[in-house]
């Protein structure tokens, strides 16, 4: 499961050789450890009118950029407002481009060229974050053009970045304001190393729902006191999710099929949670895991539908058992469990449901029609289920992993695996923990304004959106 190539091009003689040969050199990504500083250096905030050099007719300074800068300063970050404010030899840990005030495509020129001037001085694993507004059918054509245009800019900038740097966007829609908890939460998530393998993604914030963590260690333990259920927790991504949720303060109920019980017990003991041997395709699985959580822990705040299987076959050769079992586990079980959870009325206020989708569901993948049907189905499911949970402050979202280094992907033939790994902007596969970090963010109280969304954890894989 280790990426030997990545190790070789980052150490010793082989590093030198790779450099001389001009081989692709994927970076070792900065990943989160408790107590780690949010960013490694100064953060630049750019807004409307931040032209370079300053134009005599530049519009008035951007109040939205000021507001974002204020939030970042509040976290103790070294916030600067102009590209020239970087000392010699210094590097930007992050650049936040606030474009909420853009009214027409011409408004992009100043801030984007200013951003461009910083790109050679972005720190390893640095962060570019755009903040913009979603286009709506009511927008004028020019307004709509600039808003959608920002998506294109962001995705392109992300592909330009090197050394583990990433670019992601926050998109405000509906009644969401810049002051909403989820905007702060996403800013922090995207700037932090928790989003190491999230790249080229635009996440929509649709309301000011959500709760900012309290002062002190609030951002360190966002799930303190929460009870979370993770299905498929015995190994791989599920085990990583259980560990990250527990690290963030949650009590985790680890669920897997009885046959995986020994690995499940190890994970449960590691995260000091409980093991529940349960086949999620059982007709009463939702009721049973709810009953377990309520009886043993008093409440249920977070459900992560991670359990999933693959039974790959070209559609031309597909068999009913392969098709049906994938659909049964990956989507039908989730639908039924959600139905039971929602019908019970016993989920906690502000409950969070996070499902595992897949880039295969977004872009399609040869030999995975059954899997893609189920994983694209998950995307449809979260869009339709999100509004059902919104009245009680809850959310339903999906995370779509790209190529992740797991036991499952380790079974892909060596050459195919090597190619698959390099097919994203970060030129490497992600780790299970990368998926887990994004899920933990969506599961946290601050993310209440993100609902019905799909967040890809794919290093900006070349396929799909």
């Amino acid at each position, binding site marked *: 499961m280790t990426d030997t190539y990545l190790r070789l091009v980052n150490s010793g003689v082989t590093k030198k050789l790779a450099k001389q040969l001009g081989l692709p050199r994927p970076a070792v990504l900065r990943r989160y450890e408790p107590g780690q500083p949010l960013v490694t250096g100064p953060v630049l905030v750019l807004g409307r009118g931040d032209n370079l050099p300053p134009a005599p007719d530049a519009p008035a300074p951007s109040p939205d950029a000021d507001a974002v800068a204020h939030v970042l300063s509040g976290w103790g970050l070294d916030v600067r407002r102009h590209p020239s404010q970087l000392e010699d030899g210094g590097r930007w840990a992050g650049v936040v481009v606030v474009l909420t005030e853009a009214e027409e495509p011409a408004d992009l020129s100043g801030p984007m060229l200013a951003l461009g001037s910083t790109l050679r001085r972005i720190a390893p694993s640095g962060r570019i974050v755009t903040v913009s507004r979603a286009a709506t059918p009511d927008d004028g054509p020019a307004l709509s053009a600039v808003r959608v245009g920002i998506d294109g800019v962001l995705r392109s900038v992300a592909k330009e970045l090197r050394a583990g740097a990433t670019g992601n966007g926050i998109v405000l829609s509906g009644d969401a304001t810049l002051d909403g908890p989820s905007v702060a939460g996403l800013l922090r998530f995207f700037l932090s190393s928790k989003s190491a393998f999230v790249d080229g993604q635009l996440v929509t914030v649709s309301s000011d729902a959500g709760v900012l963590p309290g002062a002190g260690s609030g951002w360190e333990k966002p799930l303190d006191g929460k009870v979370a259920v993770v299905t498929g927790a015995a190994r791989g991504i599920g085990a990583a999710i259980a560990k990250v949720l527990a690290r963030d303060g949650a009590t985790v109920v680890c669920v897997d099929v009885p046959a995986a*019980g020994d690995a499940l017990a190890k994970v449960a*003991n590691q995260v000091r949670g409980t*093991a529940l041997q349960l086949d999620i395709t059982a007709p009463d699985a939702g009721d049973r895991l709810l009953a377990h959580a309520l009886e*043993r822990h008093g409440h249920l705040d977070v459900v992560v539908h991670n359990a999933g299987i693959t039974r790959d076959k070209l559609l031309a050769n597909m068999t009913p058992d392969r098709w049906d079992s994938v659909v049964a586990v990956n989507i039908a079980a989730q639908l039924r469990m959600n139905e039971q959870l929602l019908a019970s009325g016993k989920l906690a206020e502000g409950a969070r449901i996070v499902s595992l989708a897949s880039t295969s569901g977004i872009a399609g993948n040869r030999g995975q029609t059954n899997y893609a049907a189920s994983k694209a189905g998950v995307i449809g499911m979260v869009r339709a289920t999100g509004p059902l949970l919104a009245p009680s402050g809850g959310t339903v979202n999906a995370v779509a992993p790209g190529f992740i280094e797991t036991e499952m992907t380790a079974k892909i033939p060596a050459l195919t695996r090597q190619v698959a790994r390099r097919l994203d902007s970060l030129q490497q596969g992600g780790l299970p923990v990368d998926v887990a970090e994004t899920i933990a963010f969506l599961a946290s109280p601050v993310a209440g304004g993100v609902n019905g969304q799909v967040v890809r954890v794919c290093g900006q894989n070349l396929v799909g959106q």
Partner: protein
Amino acid sequence: MSPRKTSPSTPDPAPSTTQPAVRDAVIVGGNRIPFARAGSAYRTASNQEMFTAALEGLVARFGLQGERLGEVVGGAVLKHSRNFNLIRESVLGSSLDAATPAYDLQQACATGLEATIAVANKIRLGQQDSGVAGGTDTVSDAPIAVSEGLRRVLLEAQHAKTTQARLKAFAKLRPADLKPNPPVTDEPRTGLSMGEHQAITTAQWGITREAQDELALASHQNLAAAYEAGFFDDLVTPFRGLSRDNNLRTDSSLEKLAKLKPVYGKNLAGTEPSMTAGNSTPLTDGASTVLLASREWAAERSLPVLARFVDAETAAVDFVHGAEGLLMAPAYAVPRLLARNGLTLGDFDFVEIHEAFASTVLTILAAWEDDTFCRERLGLDAPLGKVDRSVLNVHGSSLAAGHPFAATGGRIVASTAKMLSQRAAETGKPARALISICAAGGLGATAILESA
């Protein structure tokens, strides 16, 4: 919990002499690893690994990580000398608080039930609030001893002070001394295997081959059905690639069982041997655990309460001089247990009689129905009674699951507690179960559980 008993007329004695009132000990749940026929899936697993695995599954099921329990009690029948602190070592290798005390206990096949009795009684007396009882056994990884001659030579050489004395010690060695002593299940005082002993009892009671095969078949069918129904989903945690007992035969039939050749009692004069590999338990590897607690301890942790441990009775018989069959002790323990609790055999929703051999169960049942036996041996006025087959070993027993000696008690206690909890939930009425386990050395341990 009832208050401590104190006499109102006399001043309180010094605190050290007050007697705590007996409180309930309840069964919270259990965990075992699937049982494996000797020499199969757990071929290379030690007792300590198996018991630790069973314990870790229990800890995971009930979220006991870092918890300091009152005590963990268990043992193994076949044990290496290096495993003198087997259970304590297992605790140290688990996720429990290392400050959890433990001790080893051994009563042959009754080890697991005896451990349960020990833990329950300390809880009932208020000496501890929680505890784990269990057991483990491996025939695959059994100790093999050196001969008595070699052992004496080695000890003498070890104590010798000079090279000359050491050489002198080794000079006493004879070729025959190099032959190792593998473990045997023979009774030391009779030299007969357990099966040969039971063959005598089987013949005495006239238990037929058909009756034994029917019981064996029911055991397999009942256990298979319980697995299919998910009954063991919260009682068993897989181990080493096994998620079900691998002795279980879902395709067994009376025809197949009838074809097996008898293995015991072949030299008994004047009788037709009837005990086969099909209606006797195989040598088995495995481990089991049961979590017991006071009601308060369980409630504080929001843990379930499946059943209450009511009472227990052990018995032993003189099989050495032929006065009684080796495995008949439970036939004596149960009447005493019932009398003390004012119960009859008809008062039980479930009766669990360990299937060392199909004929063990059948001889015990026959004895309780026999007027002469009950009058002369048990000192009763009438037969003890009949056990309705519909309440006997309803989810299968050792013939199907296998019988890792010390682990059988924990298997039965945990499964029975769950059956009682389910029955009480279905009917809304209390349910009661009787457990009976025979053991080598003419021993027997029995207990009563009730739904909590």
